[in-house]
């Protein structure tokens, strides 16, 4: 079943039109149709291997799809590296393993994109970076290298690094699953504040508490398809699909 979200409205941020993707023979994304508007906050969940990471990585073209069309702010994704770099400047991405640049301080991690990709002056970029580090509540860690920071702090630097590009949409791929339990809250708080500021967000996570607070749409993926897409209320209380119900039963027990 293909799910279309919020079909009305014209302020489309991201569109998938019957997107299919294969890894060799393995059909990883099957007929994905998707509309995400500016300001929407989408949470994607589903079992391991269902294609969640692949789906969001297609949005900033870290993965290529073979069939269908993906549009980001009306631009069709293609093979032109220059066009892709332009699109990636508008799409922030936060990874499960943080992926900070280990040879740069927290501050320099944040200024690299603005200086190299946006052509900003160092001073201007640093000012912006300090403001974003303030926003994620670690201004005092600016001059430390990633190895000297805790997991939660590293992930917040990674969020600040993305925000420094002033993106129109933020993608999160299981941002808290590599963290020790006591650090999950600080990262989720940062994300909740980001959502409150009106940022468009697409977030792969199994933090259902977070999903309830923040999401306006929750999607369930299984075997490369979007099986269910609904508002949290409906998603948790009366999902259409039996598979969704089974999945919720499994994860809500824990």
């Amino acid at each position, binding site marked *: 079943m293909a799910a279309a979200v919020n079909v009305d409205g014209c302020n489309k941020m991201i569109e998938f039109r019957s997107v299919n993707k294969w890894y060799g023979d393995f059909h990883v994304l099957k007929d994905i149709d998707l509309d995400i508007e500016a300001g929407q906050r989408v949470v994607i969940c589903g079992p391991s291997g269902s294609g969640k990471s692949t789906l969001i990585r297609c949005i900033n073209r870290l993965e290529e799809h073979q069939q269908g069309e993906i549009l980001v702010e009306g631009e069709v994704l293609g093979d032109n590296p220059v066009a892709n*770099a332009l699109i990636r400047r508008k799409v922030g991405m936060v990874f499960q393993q943080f992926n*900070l640049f*280990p040879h740069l301080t927290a501050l320099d991690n944040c200024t*690299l994109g603005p200086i190299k990709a946006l052509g900003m002056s160092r001073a201007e970029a640093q000012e912006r970076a300090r403001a974003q580090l303030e926003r994620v509540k670690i201004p005092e860690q600016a001059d430390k*290298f990633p190895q000297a920071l805790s997991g939660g702090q590293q992930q917040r630097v990674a969020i600040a690094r*993305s925000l420094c590009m002033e993106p129109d949409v933020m993608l999160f791929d299981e941002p808290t699953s590599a963290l020790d339990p006591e650090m999950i809250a600080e990262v989720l708080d940062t994300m909740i504040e980001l959502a409150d500021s009106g940022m468009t967000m697409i977030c792969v996570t199994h933090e259902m508490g977070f999903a309830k607070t923040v999401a306006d749409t929750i999607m369930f993926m299984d075997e490369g398809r979007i099986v269910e897409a609904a508002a949290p209320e409906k998603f948790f209380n009366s999902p259409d699909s039996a598979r969704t119900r089974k999945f919720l039963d499994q994860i809500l027990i824990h």
Partner: protein
Amino acid sequence: MISPHTKIKRTVGALDVVILVLALALGAYVYYRVDTVLAYNWSWDFLPGYFIRQDEQSGSWIANILLIGLVTTIRLAFWSMILAAILGAILGVMRTSTRLLPRLFSRVYVELIRNVPPLVFFFIFYFFISSQLMPALGISDFARNMSPENEKWVSILFGQPKLLENVISGIICLAFFEAAYIAEIVRAGIEAVPKQQYEAGLSVGLSRFSLLKSVVMPQALQKVLPPLANQFITLIKDSSIVSLISIQELTFLGQEVAVSTSKFFETWIFVAVLYFVICYALALLFGFLERRGSSSQR
């Protein structure tokens, strides 16, 4: 196996004493053979004069051929390191290209050079450089009609203007040879940078070039500093081979001194000490860079 956590012993054990005694005994024996059996007449006092001498007219100190050779070797090594590093970096990046042609070109270059002895490569390549490349680059003409201003700069950077062609041929030969090895080191370094670093760089909108320059290369360099240091030291040592294509560096001039004075042992031991000093100094420099690099990331 020495893991970073193995405690390194700093005290001398019984086995160390035995090894030390054996080593000293061997040294004493060699000295005895040379001294009594060969009845070799050691004399070192001629050497300083070949290194630096007093000018008869003006009385000022000027460099003699061993010092000139040492400085030429240092110049030779310095410029070929720079050239080899640039060529090696380009070839190394080409090796990791997604396109076939650059990959193939770099691969062929590296394999051709790695599987030919340096001397044979120098003989072939030197012929090509001195007969074709030097005139083509205009270096021959440039060397012959230089303005005094240029001459001053050339002597500082490359030594005597009349030997400019000679030195530049040596630099190019060495650099093209060592570049093949540096390319392999650079490739290994680039491949050691995790894929996630590329993704993070791309995600902040970096172009391929910025990604390589600001994210991949600095990390690759940090990883390959030890093998790179090794290769640069090898380059200095290989530079002695270019004496055989009559580049007038330390080994070439050392040979002249050895032959004209017949003091083979003394001359070559002195030359060896000079090589040791520059190679060891370089090793210390790289050790320092490595420690600084790794401590800045703590």
